[in-house]
């Protein structure tokens, strides 16, 4: 069987061998090439960062690479609007790109430079780009909870904006995640939850932490519409997310999409973590065979939408962009500001200044008794 089974799980997924079901239905050439380029751009970026990390030692922060997990971010990048909000956790680069945030500020941030997206304060795992309404952070389920609040804001303002929260299956261990399911289901919030289920939280198999690999079944009774996909098929991811996001904008939320995928690298950093023996060579081989980029590229070539020359052109453009951004990052100055107060607090309060006056108080009578409490 070379299409994914209708009920997916990491235990059974490797049985499909090589996935042969990529289908361009609903996707024109322009879109296809956009999806392809986005995946390739993310892949090449991660490969470059991975390669440069050691021994240069200039990127001094933890980086959780997402090689192998390019399909979902690429699909999202073609669907989100500038005024949508997106939130992710530690494995943030794919989402950062999906929201259209600039590569040069990513690189400069990782290099700890003033020109970084956060002036070198956040690094990879906490990066945000508020101009693009993209936010991340390293504490699991936080990016889910805060995303719920953004959706609350959109519902309140009655806009058609949506909130998108991207996370791994590990985050669903946290109680905070279930508060988010309950509340967004109750309030029917305009929020898209995207799980990239890559089977592991660090080195811990989902089935070491959860009785079953059945997150979509868990969230459904909370009032969250949920669907599973083979997450390395970018065309399928795009179609699924396209449908669900359209419904969200019509007020038919919330929705969760679980994409089965895999990280090729170690959990964090370029070091090898295989001494922890948490995953099999067969499993890794299956997922590399079903590389999201290779699967899609194959289809595009069969369709004659992509040939070697065209691919070279894309590769070159990406390589040029990456090289320029490394240069930008390395040329940028390090931050020097150590006004900790200013970094931490906002002292101005323009709205209060505009709306509030002052008024004299009186003399407080200190002979008053404490509030009389009742039996509650």
């Amino acid at each position, binding site marked *: 069987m070379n299409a994914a089974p209708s009920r997916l799980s990491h235990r059974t997924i490797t049985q499909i061998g090589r996935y042969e079901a990529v289908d361009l239905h609903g996707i024109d050439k322009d879109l296809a090439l956009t999806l392809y380029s986005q995946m390739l751009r993310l892949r090449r970026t991660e490969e470059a960062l991975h390669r440069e990390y050691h021994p240069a030692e200039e990127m001094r922060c933890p980086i959780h690479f997402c090689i192998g997990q390019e399909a979902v971010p690429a699909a999202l990048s073609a669907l989100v609007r500038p005024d949508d909000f997106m939130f992710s956790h530690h494995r943030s680069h794919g989402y950062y790109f999906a929201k259209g945030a600039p590569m040069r500020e990513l690189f400069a941030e990782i290099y700890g430079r003033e020109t970084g997206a*956060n002036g070198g304060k956040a690094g990879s795992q906490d990066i945000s780009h508020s101009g693009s309404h993209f*936010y991340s952070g390293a504490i699991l389920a936080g990016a889910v909870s*805060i995303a719920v609040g953004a959706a609350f804001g959109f519902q309140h303002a009655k806009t058609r904006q949506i909130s998108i929260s991207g996370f791994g299956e590990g985050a669903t261990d946290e109680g*905070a995640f279930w508060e988010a399911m309950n509340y967004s289901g109750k309030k029917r919030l305009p929020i898209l939850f995207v799980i990239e289920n890559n089977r592991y939280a660090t080195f811990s198999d989902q089935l070491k932490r959860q009785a079953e690999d059945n997150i979509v079944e868990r969230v459904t009774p909370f009032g969250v519409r949920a669907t599973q996909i083979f997450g390395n098929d970018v065309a399928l991811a795009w179609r699924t997310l396209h449908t669900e996001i359209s419904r969200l904008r019509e007020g038919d939320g919330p929705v969760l999409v679980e994409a089965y995928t895999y990280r090729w690298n170690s959990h964090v950093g370029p070091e090898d973590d295989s001494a922890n023996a948490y995953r099999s060579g067969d499993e890794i081989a299956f997922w590399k065979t079903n590389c999201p980029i290779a699967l899609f590229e194959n289809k595009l070539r069969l369709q004659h939408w992509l040939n070697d020359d065209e691919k070279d052109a894309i590769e070159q453009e990406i390589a040029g962009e990456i090289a320029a951004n490394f240069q930008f990052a390395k040329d940028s100055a390090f931050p020097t500001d150590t006004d900790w107060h200013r970094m931490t607090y906002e002292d101005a309060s323009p709205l209060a200044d505009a709306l509030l006056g002052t008024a004299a108080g009186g003399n407080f*009578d200190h002979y008053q008794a*404490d509030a009389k409490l009742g039996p509650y």
Partner: protein
Amino acid sequence: MARQLSYANAILEATDQAMALCDKVVVLGQLVDTQSGIFGTTTGLVTKYGTERVQDFPVAENLMTATAMGAALTGLRPVVCHQRLDFMIYSLDAITNWLALWRFKSNGKSAMPVTIRTIVGKGWGQGPQHSKSLHAWFAHLPGLRVAVPSTAYDIKGLLLESILGETPTIFVEGRGLYSMTDHVPEQPYRVRFGQAVVRRHGRDVTLVAIGSMVPIALRAATLLEKEGIDVEVLDPRTLTPLDRHSICQSVAKTRRLVVADPAWHSFGAAAEIITSVSEEIGDQLRAKPIRVTLPDSHTPMSMALEPRYYPADDDLVVALKQAVS
């Protein structure tokens, strides 16, 4: 007599006025939309501003704070209410790992103007899970403002300042203060953060009193007046920012310092105040500084033990006398 309002009603009025002045203000919390309205502090708001702006919330404190935070990112100005500080502890991840460092982490580009109100139970056998006052925890966290208002006048002005301000702020409200009245002007006014107030001028000893210790401190001062001891009572009103300057100014005059804090003894706010003074003008002190606090233990339910647990007028009298002796 000038317009008097209770502490609870001053909270209600501040919230009401903030909602009227700015349609981005929303109120979130368990039971905020009921008649009881968090001990009367939200009663009637839902009728006036509707269920979109005054919303009940599931019993899920962590998400409640996070929801306010995300909503603030979209431009709202949420006010979150907790019936007890103890319940709010579930939301410390949202507060500590996200809210407090959001501005910093974004390099000043993103803000979350969230106001969190939380109530410290006291009396009638609240017991150890309904009475914790963790203002020192919040004040230790960079990135937040922390208010500990003791009067109706102050809480109205500080609340308005916070709800219409840009920095996330936590209000720690003493339940015992709720019925106490004070002069509260009708118009919306501001009280600035980081400005202590001298509640009673005195020469002999400075008594810094926090939150619900303020009325007790003033009573103790009145008692000592009869014995010829002239106590200056200072109310910091906010812990972050802390008005170290005014505190030191007072101590520089009296050269004696007692701090009354309705919280646990060790590693608390009283220690910060004493240290701030010692660092600046420790060499000018004529007596060793003294803390009057709760013991390092938990709130007993029994009405026989509660009065022994909470410091009262006479505990302050003893400490003040010791300071001037």
